[in-house]
């Protein structure tokens, strides 16, 4: 798993490549990276899942922990470009009821301005 971050229109975008799995985690976890951005005062975070094929329970835990940390400080965490396969599991497990998921990143970025 490779995670790169960039900033656009007051939103920190995490471009995630590969699979968010326990075994693929190198040094910094997704939650660790999110917390680092929160510590820098960033409150609008977008996880771009365009390059993610699958995640395991560790990945789910990382996303939910990131969501809790962001909410705790009054920030917003959104997801975009989730694969159909993942989206279906997200829907069935009702993760889509909790997480703000967008089909594409432009819509997600726009929605930060609206809310």
């Amino acid at each position, binding site marked *: 798993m490779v995670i790169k971050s960039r900033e656009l229109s007051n939103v920190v975008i995490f471009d995630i490549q590969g699979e968010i*799995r*326990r*075994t693929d*985690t190198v040094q910094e*976890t997704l939650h*660790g990276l999110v917390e680092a951005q*929160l*510590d*820098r*005062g960033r409150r609008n975070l977008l996880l771009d899942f365009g390059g993610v094929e*699958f*995640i*395991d*329970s*560790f*990945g*789910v*835990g990382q996303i*939910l922990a990131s*969501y*809790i*940390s*962001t*909410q*705790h*400080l*009054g920030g917003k965490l959104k997801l975009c470009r989730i694969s*159909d*396969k993942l989206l*279906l*599991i997200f829907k*069935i*497990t*009702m*993760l889509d*009821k*909790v997480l703000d998921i967008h089909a594409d990143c432009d819509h997600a970025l726009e929605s930060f301005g609206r809310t």
Partner: protein
Amino acid sequence: MADGFLERTLKRLGDVRGHEARAALALSAFFFLITATFYIIKPVKESFLIGSKPGWWPYADLATALLIGLVVAVNARLLDRLPRRTYLTASLLFFVSGLLVFWLIFDVHQKTLSSTPVADTSGVIFLLWAQTIIWNHFPVFVIAFCFWADIFIAMSVTQFWIAVNDVFGPHEAKRLIGLFVTGGLFGGIAGAAAAALMTVVRLVEPEDLLLVCPILLVLAIAAVNGVYAEKRRTDVVAGDERLAVPSKVGAWESFRAVRSDRYLRLLAAMVASAIVAGSLINYQFKWVVGNIYPTVQARTSFIALFFLVILAVSAAFHLLTTGRVLKSYGIRWAIAAAPAFLLAASAAVFVIPLGLMLAWAWVVRGGDKMFDNTLSQSVRELLYIPVSADVKYRAKIFIDVFVNKFATGTAAVLWIVLNAARNFEYRTDPLIIIRETGLAALAFLVLWLALTRFVYREYPAVLKKDLGRIWQEGRTVIDAHLDEKLVREIFDAVQSRERSTTLYYMNLFNLVRSKNLTPELQELLGIKRNELKARAMDALFDVGAAGGLYPGLEEAITDAEFQKEIDLIYLLPTYQKIMDENLGKIIGSPSEVERIEAANSICRMAPSPPTMDALARLLQDRSVEVVLYALNGASVHRWPEHVPVILRHLGNPMTVAEAQTALAAYGPEIVGRIAPHLRSADEPAEVRRAIPEVLARIGTQKAADILVAELARRRDDMEQALIDALYKVRAERPRVRFRERDLRPELRFLIRKACDVVLGPPGPPEEAGAALVIRLRRVFDLLTLLYLREDIVNDYQHILQGTSKSVDYALEHLDNLLDREDKELLFPLIEDLPDGERVVRLKKALRLK
């Protein structure tokens, strides 16, 4: 005038912030001008009334009492229909025109006293019949003037406070109220002094004083227009909608607004009891003065001197104490100061000899007036501020006008009853009459004091009404919508399908056994076949044309009989014996999948020593995947010997969550075992930081006490984890108690650390700002342990992301909630202040140079 100079000047009189300076000055000027006007009108009014026959005197009060309702109804309608600025301007112009009309009437009357009734120069304006009417019915005009003057003071003061409510929030108003009252007091002194000076040196005739007033009221119109012009400007800048248009109001609606709200009912009762007590004290005062100064001239001189001294003392008292009392002690104690003082002073009447009665009257009546002019007035107005805008206008009019007059009438009736009950023939001793009246006054003072407690108790609740949750906490949202553990198991089950068929079915079996799966989940896992699965699932998970690995097995797993059979196998002694003998070999397999399957299977086996030994080995497996399944097994069997190994997994980010779950599964008995690891210098920092979460999940009183004790060790690297854990305990275990004596020092320590971020920023401003937010978050998290969690979370959210009005409400709520020393340190951090001002205030609070 430059804003900086204006701000510096106003700061000497009150806690005025830069953006408030213009509006605060304009409102103070407005209050100054209307009170100066009133104190010029007052001697004219009294002078003309006393000049009438004494039989006419009561009709002035009666007219006010009877007609005030009509005036309020008209006023309420105007308030409802007109824009606020137009309404205030129009009503002041109405009073200006009234002054001119009454001046003309009095002028005609006075001139005709010294000339013929028809040859006066003013007669060019009036028709002959009008002069005759004034001459023949002059007392009616005097009573009309008294009524008009009463209406003027009642309405103009109410309008002033309406303007304050429009422009400022409760916390702002509390800071600025000292400045406003100063304006009012100096206006009173200036008006009274001007009236006295002009009449003593006979610069003008008494009625000519009325011509000075229109000039002051025109200036007041300019001031109030300035206030609303400034408000419009700041609202545009802040994007804030403070000036809500009130809904329709009328006399009946005003009454209903008070009747339907417990807080307003209590407020009305408190105001009424204060006025009844004050009126009775006034009667006592009159009795004392009447007995000591028998002549009119001596009495008038004394009363004039009395009011001059009281106004001067009020101004001094106000400048020295009102702001400080409100800032340091808040409404809680300020509200009780007047009744407590008057109660003590009134009780003294029973031990004071007649010779000292005048001094006593000075103290008690002077104290009543002084508090009324200063602290009590400020507090009364502050108590209205948290009431929602539309209710406030109705309630304020009702309480300030109707309740006020009703209470004055009640006191008058009480006084008449007390006099009627006395035997005047035998009870001529003034001391007895004063003391008997004192008993009634004491009863109302006690009631007043008691009601202050009830009102204060309701005050925070009223403040909180508008402080709803801005956003739901992440954990709350997750818990409301999904079962996180189940979601994670599902993801693992789906993933395991790629790894091993057996493992997949093991996971499937565990899922089915432990959870009541929804039809959608069963579809996802291939347990139930139908059209949906054929269309979607197979394609998604590459199940293949057959639709399953072992067609029919998924359905069998859900079958109760099948599950029972599996359970029976695990319970078979022979199965256990064989497993005890072979488990060691199985877990030694080079195949990771086989070791995972073994770890998974151990969850269901009986906890024999060989099985637990095998589990211990699996917990130390080189594969993270194996360890995760083993941790799950450990959480099922809760074998004490596994604890040290599980603790080690707390240090690995890939296993920490499962290790925490496993340890938490041990329950309260493990608390004592893991506590030493929390503070052990030998443990890696990651392990120590993961332990508070375990204690939080166990959530017993002992676990909470350990967390608090560890927090008291003040280790930087543990702070966040400990506070997160304590916050979780408070959120999920409301029965757990936290001792204030343990937490207060830690709270103060955290606030001081937040102060350090401001006083010695760790980096550039952006970085320091972010660090301060994180520090404040910890402070507020800890505050949830000492105060009602919901309130603190709401206050925090509004301070962080509320509108300027809701931020002010949150600050006011905290101001009434927090300890004084905490407030002194915390408020400069959370208030909207320029950086320089924030540093100055923090240094002052920290007693730094």
